[in-house]
C-alpha cells in the first residue's frame, strides 16, 4: 500500500484506466505537456502519447461538445474543466446535451464521459474558481455527481466513473489535493458509485457531509466527543443521486441530524438530503434536521472567505441545537 495525496491518487486512477482501455482519452486546457495547472495529469502525455492525452483549445463549451462527439465514436473521454467555476461556459454541453443523450436517443446512444474539475474554497483564488456549483449539475437527471474526500475514495471512485457508461461529474476539492496523504493500493480497485460511506461511527447524532466538509465534520465530531456527544459522520461521496439508505439507517439509530455543505444555503445538495430524511424517517427524528452552509451571497471575495466558509464551530453549534431541542 502506498501513501498518496489526493492528487496523486487521481493521477494514478487516470493512468490505470489509460492502461486498461485504449478508448480512454484524457484532455483539457493545459493537461498535456504542462500536466494540468494542478499537475493532475503530470507525466501522462509522456507515458501515453499526445494521441491519448492532449491539450484542447481554450473553450469549455468546445471541450464538452467534443466529448459527446468522441463518445459517439466509441471513446471514453476524461475531460478536465480547469476550474469548476468555468462550467457555466459548458452548461449546454453538459446538462443540455451530454446528460440527455441516452434519453433522447431512446437508449441507443450514450455518453460515457467523465468530467473532472477542481473546486472548493479556502485557497484564495480569483472569482469563479472556488464556487461550489455541484448543485447545478446535481439537479440535472442523466448525470452523476461524485465528490471524494480521501485519496482512497478518489482513486476508486474515479476508476468507477471512467468505467461507467453514463456521464459522471467528478469534483476535486482543491483544499484536499495536497493537504494530507492516505493509504492507496497501487493495484486497481473500484469504489462503488451511488454509495455513501460512514467515515465515523457514532450513536447520538448524524452529520451528513461531502467533499472538504467531511473533514470539517470529523473535526467537529472529535470536539463533540469531549462534550460527551457521539457523532456519526456520513460522507455522501456521490452527491447525485444520494444514497438514501445509508442516511436513513443512521438516522434511525441517532435520531438527530445535521447536514453540512460548503455551498450556499440555497445551493448544493443539503436541501435534498433534508427532504429525503423528513419524508422517510420523520417519526425517528427528535429534532428538526438543521443545515450548516455558507450564506446566500455569491462566493466570497478571497479576502473574506475565511469568515464566509462554514467551520467546524458552525457544525458544533448546530449539533448542540439539535441535541438540546
Amino acid at each position, binding site marked *: 500500500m502506498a501513501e498518496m495525496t489526493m492528487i496523486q491518487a487521481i493521477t494514478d486512477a487516470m493512468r490505470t484506466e489509460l492502461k486498461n482501455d485504449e478508448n480512454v482519452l484524457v484532455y483539457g486546457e*493545459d493537461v498535456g505537456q504542462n500536466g494540468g495547472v494542478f499537475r493532475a495529469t503530470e507525466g501522462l502525455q509522456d507515458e501515453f502519447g499526445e494521441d491519448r492525452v492532449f*491539450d484542447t483549445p481554450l*473553450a469549455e463549451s468546445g471541450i464538452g461538445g467534443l466529448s459527446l462527439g468522441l463518445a459517439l465514436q466509441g471513446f471514453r473521454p476524461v475531460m478536465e474543466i480547469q476550474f469548476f467555476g468555468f462550467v457555466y461556459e459548458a452548461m449546454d454541453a453538459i446538462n443540455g446535451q451530454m446528460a440527455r443523450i441516452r434519453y433522447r436517443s431512446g437508449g441507443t446512444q450514450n455518453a460515457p464521459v467523465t468530467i473532472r474539475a477542481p473546486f472548493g474554497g479556502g485557497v484564495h483564488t*480569483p472569482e469563479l474558481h472556488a464556487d461550489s456549483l455541484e448543485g447545478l449539475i446535481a439537479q440535472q437527471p442523466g448525470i452523476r455527481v461524485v465528490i471524494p474526500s480521501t485519496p482512497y475514495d478518489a482513486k476508486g471512485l474515479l476508476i468507477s466513473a471512467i468505467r461507467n457508461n453514463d456521464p459522471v461529474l467528478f469534483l476535486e476539492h482543491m483544499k484536499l489535493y495536497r493537504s494530507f496523504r492516505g493509504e492507496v493500493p497501487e493495484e486497481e480497485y473500484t469504489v462503488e458509485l451511488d454509495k455513501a460511506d460512514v467515515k465515523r461511527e457514532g450513536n447520538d447524532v448524524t452529520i451528513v457531509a461531502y467533499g472538504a466538509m467531511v473533514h470539517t465534520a470529523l473535526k467537529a465530531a472529535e470536539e463533540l466527543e469531549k462534550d460527551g456527544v457521539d457523532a456519526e459522520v456520513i460522507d455522501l461521496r456521490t452527491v447525485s443521486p444520494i444514497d438514501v439508505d445509508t442516511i436513513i439507517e443512521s438516522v434511525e439509530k441517532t435520531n438527530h441530524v445535521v447536514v453540512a455543505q460548503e455551498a450556499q444555503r440555497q445551493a448544493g445538495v443539503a436541501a435534498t438530503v433534508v427532504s429525503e430524511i423528513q419524508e422517510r424517517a420523520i417519526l425517528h427524528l427528535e429534532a428538526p434536521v438543521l443545515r450548516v452552509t455558507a450564506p446566500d451571497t455569491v462566493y466570497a471575495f478571497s479576502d473574506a472567505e475565511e469568515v464566509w466558509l462554514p467551520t467546524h464551530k458552525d457544525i458544533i453549534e448546530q449539533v448542540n441545537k439539535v441535541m438540546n431541542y
Partner: protein
Amino acid sequence: MKHVLESVESQFEMFQILNEEGKIVNEDDMPDLSDEELKELMRRMVYTRVLDQRSIALNRQGRLGFYAPTAGQEASQLGSQFALEKEDFLLPAYRDVPQLIWQGLPLYQAFLFSKGHFHGNQFPEGMDALSPQIIIGAQYVQTAGVALGIKKRGKKAVAVTYTGDGGTSQGDFYEGINFAGAYNAPAIFFVQNNYFAISVPVEKQSAAKTLAQKSVAAGIEGIQVDGMDVLAVYAVTKNARERAINGDGPMLIETLTYRYGPHTMSGDDPTRYRTDDLNDEWEKKDPLVRFRTFLESKDLWSEEEENKVIEEAKEDIKKAIKEADKYPKQTVTDLINNMYDELPPNLQEQLEQFKEKESK
C-alpha cells in the same frame, strides 16, 4: 470552385512603425504626437514595468493576492490605452490592470483587486469600465452590448476590450465580434497574442495563421500589429477609434507580444513549456528598449529622466500598498449588503447572523 484561404490569410501582415533597432520604418503612418506625448508614453511604460516588478515582489512576500505579470506587454497595453479618451468604456481581462490604472483607477485600488477586496472594483466617478474579467472571453460579448448602448445614446465614444490568443478560441469571442459587426457598433476588440495561453501555444489554439483574420468571418476590419512597437499600437488604435466613432464599424486588433513572466503568480512554471532561446528572442524586441533608443535619438530621453520615473513609481507603489493594507477589511455583512438592491428575507436573516458573528 475557388479556395480563398491562402489568399485571405496572406493579406494579414504585421503593421509596424518602429523596428527592433528603434528606427522608424513607416514614416507615412507615424502618429501625430507631440514631444511631450512621446515622453509621456515612455514614462508610462517605465512606470508600469516597475509596477510589475514590485507587484511580483509583493506577491512573493505574501502581501498581494492574485497577480498576472505584464512585463513585455507594455506597448500593447499602454499604446492602446493612450489612444483612448476618458469617455470610452474599458472591458479588460485579468492581465489588463495597467490600462485601468492609466484610465483612472487609483493604484491602491488595483492592489485591493489583487488582494481580493471588492473596493478594487469600485471605480472612481466618471470612469467607465468593468473590473478585470476572469472568465476568458465573457467581456467580448459584453463589449458588443456596451458599444451598441453607446451608439443608441449617440455618444462619441467607444467600447474597448482585451483578450489573449487563448481567448480567441472561446465562443464568446466570435459572438462578440459578430454582434458588434451586425450592429455596426463602436467597439475595439484587442487580442494580445503573447503566443501562449497558459502553457498551450497559439498553434494549438487554432489552424488560423493570424488571429486578426478572424475578423473576416464577422465582417469587420481586422489588423495585425507589432505589439512591441508602442507607436504602431497607438496609431492603429487611434485609427480604429476614429472609424468607430464615425460609424464605420468595429475593429479587431491583434497585437503580437510576449509576457516575460509566468502566466500568473499562482504556481505557473513557464520552463515547462517555453525555452530560454524563445525568451531571449523576444527580449530583443523589448518595447521599452526600442522606444528609448528612438527617443534618445531625438534627444527626448535620458538616463536621469528614466531614473526619476523609476523613483517616482517606487514611491507611489509604497504609498499605495500601505493605503491598501489599511483599507477596512471587507466583512461578510458587506458582501450580503452588496447582493441585491432590496435585501430579500433570507438574506435579512443571514445579515443578522453575520452581524452578530462579526461583532465578536
